[in-house]
């Protein structure tokens, strides 16, 4: 089948391929262009270069095992993808995370949102020539990622948010690092505002470029910053509040034009709001009920396993650093009480028979998490819009069907139309402002 653009081609125009491997194409995506000089007459997108069969794989994995795959969808804000999947499943199972876990989820997803927006804007500005801004933003992102790394143990593929709660409690030494991250992000954002907001070159490149109207944006299924840039008030956190967002104060920044500049400024303001949410959540988070924050005391794990061969071990067990924050005592704070849905504490698994049985029941094929029959849709506010999951369960331990509503799928679908009549050079900031993420788009 020939491409639409070839069928519609005019006689004297020039056909140019942009991508699939092009420095400005963030990942791999191909834009076929029909040009008259520098003007875009017609465009067609070809996607699917990053298709990994996410949905097919999920049908063959258990509910617990497929969690790491959700990290790889939007790989700059993996925590929000985890959250979306986990909360969809929780809705199906009818469980709720403890309050402290919900605050941890909010803090983590806001940190991810900041890093997502920073990445999108950094790429967009760099492609317009503002390399200083790129470096500033990447520096701020680095600080944010340090905080994420400290608690979750990973920078990108975190798999931190678990069914019924989170994997670990916040790191005991998180406060100074988070302070530093928030302060330096604020400072760097101020510099970026100063460099760009009234910059003539930046304004010329972005103002009134790739304008999309309210009606068109809704018709295309836009969500997130791209929709709000057109002036439509819709944020999943406000419309369908989840976790503890209804107890936190924040604003939803709106644009009015729906052009590239508005998408930029909305993202910049959202970063500020996200930092505000983090600060509030830090103050409001219920205190941990665990007596000690650090688990240096207690007997050696190896000793405990040896002792458990003769009789039940009552003493406290010192844990290895890679399980930091997930010792038995903090479980009530961060995970649901419903034992059949959570990984049992490692101390129990290795030292007593009930824990071992729990462990087997959780991980064995055909046992594990088996939601009731039915289907469910749930969505959270991701970095670039509404991240929704549609899960169909047939009562077994694997999803019968799992479908992702990726926000940038709908946004990138509009690119063909948005760049018509603009110059080639305008494609770059337009594409950057959409925050196309290959993992989420191609699945």
């Amino acid at each position, binding site marked *: 089948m020939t491409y639409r653009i070839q069928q519609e081609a005019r006689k004297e125009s020039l056909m140019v391929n942009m991508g699939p491997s092009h420095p400005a194409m963030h990942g791999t995506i191909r834009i076929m262009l029909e040009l008259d000089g520098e003007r875009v007459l017609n465009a067609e997108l070809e996607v699917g270069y990053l298709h990994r069969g996410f949905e*097919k794989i999920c049908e063959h994995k258990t509910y617990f095992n497929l969690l790491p795959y959700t990290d790889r969808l939007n790989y700059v804000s993996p925590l929000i993808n985890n959250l979306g999947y986990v909360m969809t499943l929780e809705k199906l199972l009818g469980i709720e995370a403890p309050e402290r876990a919900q605050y941890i989820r909010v803090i983590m997803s806001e940190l991810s949102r900041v890093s997502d927006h920073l990445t999108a804007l950094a790429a967009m500005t760099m492609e317009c020539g503002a390399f200083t801004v790129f470096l500033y933003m990447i520096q701020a992102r680095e600080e944010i990622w340090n905080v994420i790394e400290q608690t979750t143990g990973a920078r990108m593929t975190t798999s931190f948010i678990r069914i019924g709660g989170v994997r670990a409690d916040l790191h005991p030494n998180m406060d100074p690092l988070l302070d530093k991250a928030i302060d330096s992000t604020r400072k760097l954002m101020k510099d970026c505002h100063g460099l760009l907001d009234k910059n003539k070159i930046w304004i010329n490149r972005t103002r009134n470029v790739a304008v999309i109207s309210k009606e068109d944006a809704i018709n295309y299924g836009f969500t997130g910053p791209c929709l709000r840039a057109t002036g439509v008030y819709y944020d999943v956190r406000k419309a369908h509040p989840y976790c503890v967002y209804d107890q936190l104060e924040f604003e939803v920044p709106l644009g009015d034009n729906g052009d590239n500049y508005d998408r930029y400024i909305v993202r910049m303001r959202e970063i500020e709001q996200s930092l505000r949410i983090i600060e509030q959540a830090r103050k409001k988070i219920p205190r941990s009920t665990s007596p000690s924050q650090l688990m240096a005391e207690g007997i050696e794990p190896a000793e405990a396993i040896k002792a458990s061969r003769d009789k039940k071990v009552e003493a406290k067990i010192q844990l290895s650093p890679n399980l930091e924050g997930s010792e038995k005592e903090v479980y009530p704070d961060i995970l649901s009480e419903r034992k059949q849905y959570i990984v049992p504490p490692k101390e129990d698994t290795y030292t007593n028979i009930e824990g071992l049985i729990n462990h087997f029941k959780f991980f064995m094929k055909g046992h594990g998490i088996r939601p009731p029959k039915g*289907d469910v*849709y749930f969505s959270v506010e991701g970095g670039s819009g509404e991240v929704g999951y549609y899960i169909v369960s047939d009562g077994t331990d694997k999803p019968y069907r799992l479908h992702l509503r990726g926000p940038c799928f709908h946004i990138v679908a509009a690119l063909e139309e948005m760049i018509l009549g603009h110059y080639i050079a305008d494609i770059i900031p337009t594409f950057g402002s959409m925050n196309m993420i290959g993992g989420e788009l191609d699945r």
Partner: protein
Amino acid sequence: MATEKKKVTEVLKDKFPEKVKDVSFPLGDETIVIEADALLEICRFLMKDPFALTMLLDLTCVDYIGEEMRFEMVYHLFSITNNNRLRIKIRLPEKDPAIASLTPLWKNANWLEREVYDMFGIHFTGHPYLKRLFMYDGFEGHPLRKDYPLRKRQPMIPMRRKE
């Protein structure tokens, strides 16, 4: 909200008594099951006030292999003004599954339907450009169908020649 929610499905039931087969609220998600031939008509009706379900949030398909009406199309509509979602389900037969395209109403239906065509082989009548979205031309079969094996390999396609 609760009274309004009931309204959408109730009004639909009154207005299209033969087309609406079932109404349910699993886990609070409003769901209606309708006949395939009424899709465009019902969607046109829902887009207008007072329901204003103006956004096509999602469109996908589920393969119930072994059943006579094998495929189930699932549409999620959303109204920004009323802040409510509606799920529409339609069953399609195993042989030559086809349904009206929603491209005249929603622009993002174009890509969403291409994806479903690619993954499930559902035909959308009236779609302007029904071409595989993620897979390449020359790919055989539809990967998300339940009878497509997980680890099936496809032969390499020959290099495209310059014409």
